[in-house]
């Protein structure tokens, strides 16, 4: 089982560990998932996401052109230090991985899901490995700091980060070493992701803690992202669901819809003609939690879909879920039934995110989607 460079720090803060994508990762710390979740919503929380892949591609305009043939976004239009959410697509229109791609001065950085990173690397090497240097970093850690106070905590340690715009990054210094920070995250809160050398990551995180932030485990990361309506690969997205079915149409550049990329024919058809199943938000009418694999029925007992993620949302203070449903039933407020432990529980289709922040500052604080 692999460990991240923060393993000792996790132990120090009394983490409970779980196996996740081949890594021993903290599911929670001493205070527990609900308190960690609330801490992130009300103040700030630190997440070790070093198990995720940080892939670097070196190249100029020609690389941009070649990557356009792989990713369904308009990379020519994004500026240096700007990030975009995208997918590594399968020929059938399914998704190998969802990822964040950032344009750098001398190439691109792509943040990949831990469970997919080796496969992604092989796919990219096969496609363009002969022309460009591709490297999946093993000397960098990845830390996220999320929550309304994240900017104030981080600003104390890395002056200037507060000026970063959402989905934009920049190079900074910590202990004379380069760190790369983007304003992004996966909690529905304002926040940052910090790519930092393994050697200094522990001292950096301790500094964040000294300045009032605290460690948050994968358990709260899951409840936070689900409240924010964000997908988890391997659950809400996989090789047999397309971005259009996943209700992530916004992530595919309009300017690219008639171009060729893996799965483009399929995507173009769905983009223009619609889909037969769609990812939706689901709110059970009672307190019953509908988890992954729970079957969805209509009022006449016909199976019409399946839950792909479900939990108790601490900020919503109730159960929430998302899943794929026959498109005829995808309209907000449609009544459906969830089969939990043999009983049909009433629920409604609802808009996502389940939890939305009232942002004080318009332009500066934004969330994805």
């Amino acid at each position, binding site marked *: 089982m692999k460990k991240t460079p923060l393993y000792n720090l996790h132990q120090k803060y009394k983490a409970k560990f779980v196996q996740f994508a081949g890594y021993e990762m903290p*599911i*929670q710390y001493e205070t*527990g*998932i*609900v*308190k960690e*979740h609330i801490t992130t919503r009300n103040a700030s929380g630190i997440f070790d996401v070093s198990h995720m892949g940080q892939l670097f591609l070196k190249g100029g305009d020609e690389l941009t052109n070649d990557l356009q043939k792989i990713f369904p976004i308009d990379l020519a239009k994004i500026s240096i230090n700007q990030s975009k959410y995208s997918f590594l697509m399968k020929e059938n229109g399914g998704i190998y991985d969802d990822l964040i791609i950032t344009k750098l001065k001398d190439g691109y950085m792509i943040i990949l899901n831990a469970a997919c990173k080796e496969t992604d690397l092989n796919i990219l090497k096969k496609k363009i490995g002969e022309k460009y240097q591709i490297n999946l970093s093993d000397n960098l850690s990845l830390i996220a700091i999320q929550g309304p106070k994240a900017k104030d905590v981080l600003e104390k340690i890395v002056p200037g980060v507060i000026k970063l715009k959402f989905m934009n990054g920049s190079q900074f210094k910590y202990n004379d070493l380069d760190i790369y920070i983007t304003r992004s995250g996966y909690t529905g809160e304002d926040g940052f992701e910090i790519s930092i050398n393994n050697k200094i990551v522990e001292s950096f995180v301790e500094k964040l803690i000294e300045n009032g932030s605290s460690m948050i485990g994968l*358990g*709260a990361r899951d*409840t936070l992202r689900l409240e924010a309506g964000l997908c988890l690969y391997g659950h809400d997205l996989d090789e047999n669901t397309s971005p259009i079915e996943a209700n992530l149409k916004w992530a595919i550049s309009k300017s690219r819809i008639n171009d060729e990329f893996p799965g483009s024919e399929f995507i173009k058809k769905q983009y223009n003609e619609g889909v037969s199943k769609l990812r939706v938000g689901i709110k059970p009418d009672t*307190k*019953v*939690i509908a*988890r992954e694999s729970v079957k969805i029925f209509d009022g006449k007992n016909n199976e019409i879909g399946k839950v792909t993620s479900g*939990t*108790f949302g*601490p900020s919503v203070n109730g*159960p929430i879920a998302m899943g794929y449903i026959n498109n005829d039933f995808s309209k907000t407020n449609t009544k459906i039934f969830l089969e939990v*432990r043999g009983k049909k529980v009433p629920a409604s289709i609802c808009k996502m995110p389940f939890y939305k922040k009232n942002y004080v500052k318009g332009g500066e604080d934004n969330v994805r989607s």
Partner: protein
Amino acid sequence: MSEVKFSKEHEWITVEGEVATIGITKHATELLGDIVFAELPEKGSNVNKDATAGVVESTKAASDVYTPISGEVVDTNQSIVDDPSKINSDPEGDGWFFKLKIKDPAEMNTLMNRDEYYKFAKENAS
């Protein structure tokens, strides 16, 4: 009130006259984490030893609650349905689940005392 007894499924049970009170152990709540949902058996229903008699869910997962002995459900603790966090804060007190009219007092002999249970829990710690 009798001595508290424990089951291998991490329930505790106390007996007063012919009525037993059942809940889940502190150890179980620590394994589960924050409990956010509880489902109780129906009042008046009959439950058999070691059968499912309820459900608890934490933010992480759902777990069945079993009854350590057989009997008729005579009372249930609705307050843990309204506020499941009570199970975490006071598992062997306010966090009780249900009361049974005992069918066969001899079934109590199959259960562990506190020392035996904590030894068992330690040996089977995941």
